[in-house]
């Protein structure tokens, strides 16, 4: 070991302060998910009611229930993986692949639904501004996730941002399944695509921040 490394070790360890023990990352993820879901539900209700027969349909239409539950599972698992990705070595490639696969499987339901919808497509419960609501309701959870992951140590901040922004975007998209009209094409165009845009915006923001940091450190 070189003298410089010895000196560095001495410098880093001298005057060492205790660090506050972090909550388990999975717990942080679940707390964020729960608070984000509560926020999305509350603000959605604030802007308009649920589709009148949505809860009855959940109880009586198994495929609709399966579609909704699959969405919930995919979003929850992706949230956990997103936060794990902000801790070195906590997220495996396999878990990331599984998260993306679950999301893809859930979204594939709507593709299948174009030909064989889970429910009879209907305009009942249509919200006038669902596309903007989906976009706007995703922003606070995404910002919160950004702040929380910044306190961790994301080695690949852009990947982390893509994942948690995806979850933030898909939360309102999923809830619109109950709050807005049911028609697969409408869901894809007005709920899913805005959710995916949030993911891209989150990734782009993280990339930009990273780029600025690198430029500053180089100059």
């Amino acid at each position, binding site marked *: *070991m*070189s*003298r*410089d*490394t*010895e*000196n*560095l*070790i*001495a*410098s*880093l*360890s*001298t*005057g*060492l*302060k*205790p*660090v*506050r*023990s*972090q909550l*388990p*990352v999975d717990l942080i993820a679940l707390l964020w998910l729960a608070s984000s879901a509560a926020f999305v539900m509350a603000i959605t209700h604030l802007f308009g009611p649920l589709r009148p027969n949505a809860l009855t349909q959940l109880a009586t239409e198994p495929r609709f229930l399966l579609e909704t539950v699959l969405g919930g599972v995919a979003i929850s698992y992706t949230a956990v993986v997103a936060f794990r990705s902000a*801790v*070195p*070595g*906590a997220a495996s490639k396999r878990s990331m692949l599984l998260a993306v696969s679950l999301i893809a499987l859930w979204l594939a339901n709507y593709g299948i639904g174009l030909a064989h919808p889970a429910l009879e497509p209907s305009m009942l419960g249509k919200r006038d501004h669902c596309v903007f609501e989906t976009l706007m309701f995703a922003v606070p959870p995404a910002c919160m996730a950004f702040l929380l992951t910044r306190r*961790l*140590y994301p*080695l*690949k901040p852009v990947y982390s941002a893509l994942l948690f922004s995806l979850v933030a975007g898909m939360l309102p998209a999923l809830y619109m399944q109950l709050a807005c009209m049911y028609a697969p094409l409408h869901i894809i165009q007005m709920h899913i695509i805005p959710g995916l845009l949030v993911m891209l915006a989150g990734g782009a923001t993280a990339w930009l921040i990273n780029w600025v940091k690198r430029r500053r450190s*180089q*100059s």
Partner: protein
Amino acid sequence: MTVQLKAAPSCAAVSGYMTDNEDSATDEKRWAILMASAQAGNEEDYRTLLTELSRAIKHYLLSRIGSQHFIEDCVQDTLIAVHQARHTYDPRRRFRPWLFAIVRHKTIDTMRRQRSQQQLARQQEDILLQEHNTTEDLDSSITRGRLLDKLSPQHREVLTLTRFIGLSNAEAAAQLHISESAVKVRVHRAIGKLTRLMEADA
């Protein structure tokens, strides 16, 4: 209070850690205990941990990318990253995946930086040949910034040399009559201080 541990493995044992499962398991346990103790603020255990890690990281890098000129930089950058990320280590999880995720990231980062650093060094040589600003000249122009004025003279000096004039850590170390690692630590702390000042100023 220092955590009671078994005697540190010999250099040979440490250097063979990747191939010997028993040593790996011992290191894993030791490092996890030492890091938990370091998180509580134990300097001695932290020093022991970083010393062992530096050897292990060096061996890891040598065995994977050969004897490159930036290996020592890589080791030092990784140690700084371990220091910055130490709050994210969860003692309920394994230590090695946490450590080597950082090592890999820092190695790639350093290797990426090498090319741009070399290009930058050439550009800076040209600029320095054209301009004959002294450290004092630059320092006086820089200290006009009120946030920089709030930094300690040591921090301002090291930022001036490494970030504004663009001297290498070694050159700055020679000018300041301190070690390279001390320059790195000072720069790290100065930027941290400046970031906090800027956040408070916003």
